[in-house]
Every structure is written in C-alpha cells, then in structure tokens.
C-alpha cells in the first residue's frame, strides 16, 4: 500500500502513484500533458477479457459499439459468449435480464445515454425491479465524450441510476480502479451500473488500490476542507488540492467511486474533521454525487458545502479539457469552491488564488 508524504508537509497521498504526484501541477491540463492516460472504457474491455477467462458464466452484450469500447476483443476471444444486438439497446437490456435468470452474468455494454435513457424502462422494470444479476457497462459517462456533443454526453447517468431501487452505481476515476470495479461487480449479487469515461484520463492509481464497492477512499490527507469526487473529476480534485496547498490550505480528497450505496461514514468523518465539503462530478448537480453527499450532510451534520458539476444546461462539442473549463468543472473551479466553503466555515478564512 503506497503512502508517501508530499513536499507539502500538511498533506499526504494514499494510493496515488508516486510518479503522478509531481505531475499534478496547478492547472486543469497539467496531468494530462505529462501522465500516462487511458479512457476507462478500454480498461473495462481489458478487465472483462480477463474475467471471461476466469468465469465461464460471464457473457458480454454489445449494441454496435464494440469497436468503440474494445469489447470486440472479448468477442474474438469468446465468440460463443459474445452477443451483438446491433443498434437496439432496449432489446439488449431485457435480454440481459432474461440471461441473468438462468445464472449467466451479462455485462451489457453501451453508452451511458443509451443505457440510462433510451433503455431505462428495460433497465428499471426488467433488471432492477426483479433485482437480476446484470452488469451495465456504460461508456461516455458524464461529459467525457467531449467532441461527440450533447447527444452522447451522459451527464445524467448517475442521477438516473441512483434513483432506481436495487441499484448499485459506480463511476471510477482511472483504468486500474475501473478494472477492479469490473471484477468486483462480477461477485456482487444484483445489478451494477458502471460508468466509464470516453475521453482519456490520467492513470492515478496502481492495482493495490483497495477497491471495495460502497467504500470511498481517502487519497489525499488534509484538514481544512474535503473534496469528494468521482470518475474523471478525481484527477481535477487532486490538481485543485495541489493548487490550494500552494496557498497553505490542506485539502482532503476522497475518491467516492460508488455513488450508491454511499459511504456515509467516510463523508461524515470528513465533515467532522474538515468542516467544509466540495463535491466534484461531471454529472449534473441534480441527483448525482453532490446531491447524495448533501442529503447525508443536511440530515446528519450540516456544514458549508458546494457542488461542482454540470449546471442546468447541456454542454456542447469540444475537446474534453476545454469543455470542463467552460462548464465550470475544472480544477480552478473546484479550488475556488473550496475557498468559498472554507470562508463560510466559522472562523474560516478565504485566500484568493492568484
């Protein structure tokens, strides 16, 4: 378990690859310029291939995006356990439910918008209502499919999936944690929704990351405030924390990869120990991670809190890093929100950024 002390003495990282820490820098794009990156959809494809070797019950269902998600590799290796439904996500989801009634473990692969919007009726009534053992593997989660534009940006996927009974909702930050999540889902009884990034994100962690469904992981220590982030925003949260460290603020960062079931204990501990919380997600601010954290805080431990996420708007086509800057999701936006919640803390102080 790697845990090293950073040059900022008030903070320490957990599980973050040591070589990544100096690359975090101060700006949104810094780790993207230097660190090794991969779209987590590809990590899914690698993980499912390995899972297929170990578990003969695992089948992969595609809806004509196997070349985009790399699940065609599973189809090549296990042709008899691969089913391409064509552009027909509704049929795929209900068929996955049928397969699960016979003991198979289907991973139904498509984009987040199609899994959670077009096929939502099937996902709700055929998969979650009977609590069948279907894993929904969704690429293009959040606004990570930058260039593809709004129709392909699954900016509501976490909100929608969190509202469905019997759901488990996971949005991992990078490739290693994505692989661990894909494997954890296979032994988790019941439906699991996995949200992947379409655009490349820096590889932050190693395979020694203690991934457990429903357990948030503190990846950076700090006492002045906490950033709770998931999916692609974990990287931005780390950059924001680093930026604030230069200002003398010690900011805790929690990778809250599981939005449901939520790790309320980790959230309340952070609330008690740091007194201010910012959530960061590339989902809309309604109903996703920010809402989930706010629900816990308002009921148990109200403290200054702010949500970073997509506001009441659709985004647009553009390079990923430019989109997150334009739509208020960058490290700078997160850092500013942290300063604001610290200022709202009783006796807290605000330090303007350069």
């Amino acid at each position, binding site marked *: 378990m790697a845990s090293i002390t950073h040059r900022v003495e008030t903070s320490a990282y957990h599980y973050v690859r040591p070589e990544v820490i100096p690359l975090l820098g101060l700006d949104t794009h810094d780790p993207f310029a230097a660190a090794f990156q991969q779209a987590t959809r590809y990590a899914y494809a690698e993980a499912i291939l390995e899972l297929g070797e170990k578990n003969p019950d695992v*089948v992969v269902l595609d809806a004509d995006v196997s070349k985009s998600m790399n699940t065609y590799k599973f189809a090549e290796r296990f042709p*008899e*356990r691969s*089913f391409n*439904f*064509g552009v*027909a996500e*509704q*049929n*795929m*989801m*209900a*068929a*996955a*439910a*049928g*397969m*699960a*009634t*016979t*003991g*198979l473990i*289907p991973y139904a692969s498509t984009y987040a918008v199609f899994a959670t919007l077009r096929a939502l*009726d*099937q996902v709700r*009534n*055929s998969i979650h*209502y*009977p*609590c069948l053992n279907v894993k929904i593997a969704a690429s293009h989660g959040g606004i990570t499919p930058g260039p593809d534009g709004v129709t392909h940006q699954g900016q509501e996927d976490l909100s929608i999936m969190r509202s469905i009974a019997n759901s488990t909702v996971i949005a991992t930050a990078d490739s290693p944690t994505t692989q661990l999540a894909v494997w954890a889902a296979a032994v988790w009884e019941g439906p699991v929704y996995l949200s992947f990034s379409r655009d490349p994100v820096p590889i932050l962690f190693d395979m020694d990351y203690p991934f457990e469904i429903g357990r948030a992981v503190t990846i950076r220590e700090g006492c002045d405030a906490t950033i709770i982030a998931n999916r692609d925003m974990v990287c931005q949260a780390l950059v924001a924390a680093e930026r604030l460290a230069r200002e003398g603020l010690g900011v805790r960062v929690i990778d809250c990869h599981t939005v449901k079931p939520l790790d309320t204990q980790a959230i309340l501990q952070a609330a008690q120990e740091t007194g201010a919380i910012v959530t960061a997600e590339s989902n809309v601010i309604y109903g996703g991670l920010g809402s989930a954290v706010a629900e816990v805080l308002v009921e148990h431990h109200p403290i200054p809190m702010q949500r970073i996420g997509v506001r009441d708007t659709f985004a647009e086509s553009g390079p990923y890093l430019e989109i997150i800057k334009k739509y208020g999701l960058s490290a700078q936006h997160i850092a500013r929100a942290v300063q604001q919640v610290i200022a709202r803390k009783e006796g807290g102080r605000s330090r303007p950024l350069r």
Partner: protein
Amino acid sequence: MKMPQQAPMSIEELQAMAAAIRRDIIHMITVAQSGHPGGSLSAADIVTALYFRVMRVDPHNPDWPDRDRFILSKGHACPVWYAALAERGYFDKSHLDTLRKLDSILQGHADMKKTPGVDMTVGSLGQGLSAGLGIALSGKLRRKDYHVWVVIGDGEIQEGAIWEAAMAAAKWKLDNLTAILDLNRLQNDDFVAVTMPVDPAAEKWRAFNWHVVEIDGHQMPEIVAALERAKTIQGRPTIIIAHTVKGKGVSFMENVAAWHGKAPSPEEAQRALEELGQSIRR
C-alpha cells in the same frame, strides 16, 4: 384444498380446465375489483394448453433449471397466468383472492420474485419477448433443451422493442423460442386497427424471418397441434398467430374494448360465471 391437476391432459380435459381458469379469472378480478379481464380471457386456451399439455414443468420445483420457460409479456393479463399456476399446483388457490392486495404474492403485473412459477417480471409492454430471447440464447450457449414460450399481445407489438427482439431471434436462429401472438383485435383505447394497425401481422413476422403459423386461438386441438409442432421447427423461431376474441367466454365482454381493464360488478360476475359454467358442460 383441491389436489393440483395432472398433466398432460386430453383435449376434453384441457377444454374443461380452460373454463375453470376463465372462472378463476372472473372470480379474482371481481374480488380485487381491479384488473384486466378481456386479455386474460382471450389467452386462456393458449395458456391452458401450455401448462397442462405442452410445457415441461414441475410445479413442485419452479426453479428447475431445465424447465420450459413461460413469459406472459402482455403482463396486464396476469390473472390468466395466476389462475393457471394455481390450478397446476404452484401455489394454493386461496391466493387468487389476494390479487392486487397488500402483501399478496399476486401483484397487479406479474413479479417473478413474488410468485412461484413466474419466470420473468412483466408489465411494461414489449420486454418479455426480449427476456425470453435472453433465456433462449442462454439455453443454446449451455446446450440446454428447454423451450421458451412467450405470449405477446397485438397491441403490444406496436412497441418498437418487439421488433428489435424479432430481428435478434432470427439472427441467432432461436428455434428454442416460440412466441404466441394473442391477436384479439382490441387494445386499451379502441380496436387495434383504429388505434394503430398492426396488419398484416403474419407478413411482418415472415419478413423478420420467423416461422409463422396462424390458428384459431380458441380451438384446443389446433392450439395443441401448433404448440407441439413449434418445438420441432429448426433453425428459426416460431410465432403462432392466434386469432382470438377479447373477453372470450363471457358474452357481454366479448369484443368490447371497455373490458380491457375493468372489473365486473358482482352481478356481472355472476352472469359471467353462469355462462362459463355452462361452457364446461358442453
């Protein structure tokens, strides 16, 4: 408590059982004062033939992995399913009085986790055929010889997802999957031909590369023959287009759209039961 009925039954026994199931349907919907009699009655002969003659099932072992599967994709008609399961011995008939009530094993639309013998949760139209397709694919993958039977409605085939499933079943040559189209010509609002025509239905399914058979869905010998033959067709899925009468067996319910989702009054129920009692002595 009556002993569960034995299968396989003769044609005469099947006809008597279908009448008993129709009486159960009227009874349970009347007690519940809620439910869908029309489409339950139209499918009664088909469901009876499946459970009491054709399907390989064991009521004492409803989760038997090698059993034939049955999915009533037109899930609002579940009273016919519940009646057949109860008559077949999956659970005690006294449960029929609890339809749509709190804590009942019999939900308004069928729930596989609550009702023994229900192989798939249904209710939102256009999903059961896809679920059956998934079960059939699993059967092929694991070299199982069970057969999957899915009853769909003619209003239901207005759902686009039905045709997604139709395409896929032909792609994968699922000869272990049979759909039975309960073509009763009516849907919730009006005649199917008025609301959204589905004709020519047989040509549509043929164009989707299914083996298509058309029968009178109330003639028991025809039903049994078509179901038995469907099991022998190889290399493609079969659809049995069953021409039926919505509300079949109850004169004032027959061909009346209003009886899609309306419970009879006690007086109406009495009339209905008398008519159905007569049919048993035929």
